[in-house]
């Protein structure tokens, strides 16, 4: 019995070794990291607290820190002494092409994993699930979508939240007036100046804007979740070995119990450079994503 299992273990170990040698041989990203001693991380300039600049071309954030942990892990696995990380700021428009053409090896911003993008790029396990929520003034008495009847609801032009609101209005028979901000700051100003009674947007954006406002205590995030979207680290599609290495690191980070600590650090504690507290509580959806690591696209989250 024992002997068989030993043999089995030996076979498995050999197999793993072989496959890992194969993997290294086939993975252009891992090859590139080994030969150049450097890797390029795609980051966002102002997606607080996920990925943002803290000045002087330094970048930090929840996803950025996780990516650094992953890359550190891969560096050790490859037996390298040092690995230089180059930071490449990306935008919503260029992030997918930059990953596709190899400029960026690993994108650590705020990219929604959906089926359309999954045709062009690969996504690692989801570690953050964005929820579309409602922000209101604390004294408004609004507690749910139903309370929005006859109210003015702000959201930002050119976001999926606009479409989401429209669908909700039709489906639930709640009648509200939509007002549109040019960008998130404008939408928040609509709420602040009383032009709107509520601001519907991604939870982290709402929490960030509230934290940055004159009196954060005057605002509250309330009500049911209008939509959920998995935000994931993006890698090249044609390099499954690299993606497997990233996923293996993520599994390790989660297994070591680091995730709640990282959440506390970035979402519930003062963060540089201005020492604001985002103040977004850990959602059940994100907790669930940690417990059951997966790379399901957004479409799977909103199936009813």
């Amino acid at each position, binding site marked *: 019995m024992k002997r068989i299992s030993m043999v089995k273990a030996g076979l498995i170990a050999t197999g793993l070794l072989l496959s890992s040698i194969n993997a290294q041989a086939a993975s252009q990203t891992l090859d590139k990291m080994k030969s150049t001693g450097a890797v390029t991380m795609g980051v966002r300039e102002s997606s607080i607290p996920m990925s943002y600049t803290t000045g002087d071309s330094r970048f930090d954030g929840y996803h950025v820190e996780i990516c650094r942990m992953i890359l550190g892990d891969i560096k050790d696995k490859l037996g390298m002494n040092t690995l230089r990380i180059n930071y490449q700021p990306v935008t919503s428009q260029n992030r997918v092409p930059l990953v596709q053409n190899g400029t960026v090896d690993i994108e650590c911003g705020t990219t929604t994993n959906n089926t*359309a993008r999954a045709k062009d790029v690969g996504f690692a396990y989801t570690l953050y699930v964005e929820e579309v929520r409602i922000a209101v003034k604390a004294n408004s008495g609004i507690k749910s979508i139903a309370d929005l009847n006859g109210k003015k609801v702000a959201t930002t032009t*050119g976001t999926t939240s*606009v*479409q989401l609101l*429209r669908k909700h209005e039709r489906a639930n028979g709640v009648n509200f007036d939509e*007002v*549109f901000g*040019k960008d998130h700051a404008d939408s928040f100003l609509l709420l602040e100046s009383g*032009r709107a009674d509520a601001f519907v947007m991604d939870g982290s954006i709402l929490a960030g804007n509230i934290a940055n406002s004159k009196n954060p205590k005057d605002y509250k995030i309330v009500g049911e979740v209008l939509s959920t979207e998995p935000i994931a680290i993006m890698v090249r599609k044609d390099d499954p070995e690299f993606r497997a290495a990233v996923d293996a690191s993520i599994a390790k980070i989660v297994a070591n119990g680091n995730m709640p600590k990282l959440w506390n650090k970035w979402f519930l504690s003062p963060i540089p450079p201005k020492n604001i507290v985002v103040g977004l509580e850990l959602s059940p959806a994100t907790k669930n994503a940690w417990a059951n690591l997966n790379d399901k696209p957004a479409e799977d989250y909103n199936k009813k």
Partner: protein
Amino acid sequence: MDLGIFCKGTLDQEPVEHCFSALFAFGKNPDPSYLDWLMKAWGWTLAVAALGLILALLLGALMGTLRTLPPENKFNRFLVRFSTAWVELFRNIPILVQVFLWYHVVPAFIPVLKAFPSYLLVSIALGFFTSARIAEQVRAGIQSLPSGQKSAATALGLTTFQSYRYVILPMALRIVIPPLTSESMNLIKNSSVAFAVSVPELTLFAMQAQEETSHGVEIYLAVTLLYALSAFAVNRVMAYIEKRSRIPGFIVGNSEVAAH
């Protein structure tokens, strides 16, 4: 290119039964298509621009005239200073900033304005901004008249008001129709800033619809076409007015060149 996108529903992006229902069931169709939405957005663009244009032409003609008043008494001198201040105030601030001022800042001081819908505030902003530019054109038109015209009016015993009403303005306003045409067309195009304060006009449609459908090329082509069409329609109307108001023998009448 896939123009079929305009026949898809705005809720589920499935093809709809009646691609174009904007004219017959304006706003009542529970399942509007992107074409319906586009038409509605065009309507908002035209409404905001038309309101702004009326305001701009009235105020512009008034302020431009006031700037040329002879400084013969205290009241006239006040009017000249006031109209000069008006022009300098409204032509030195970018239009987008003016729109924000009318929407966010001014209502903070004049609470009545809070009840005004945003399209009205944008029309005011556009109207005032353009009125400053029209005022300068009207002033230039008046000052381009030979001084003999004014003297002749005075010699006939006309008061200042009468000489403006019967002699100066009928001449000057005819001269400035071509630059007024440009200004009116500019106003149509400038109305795109209305998207910034949540008027659901063409630019807002373009930004939103291209995010929802990922068909940016088709959406922007359609929106560009409608802007161009609107501005060109204004151009034709002004050309018609210019042609009909021409008086043979007058300064403008001597020119055989048609308006462009």
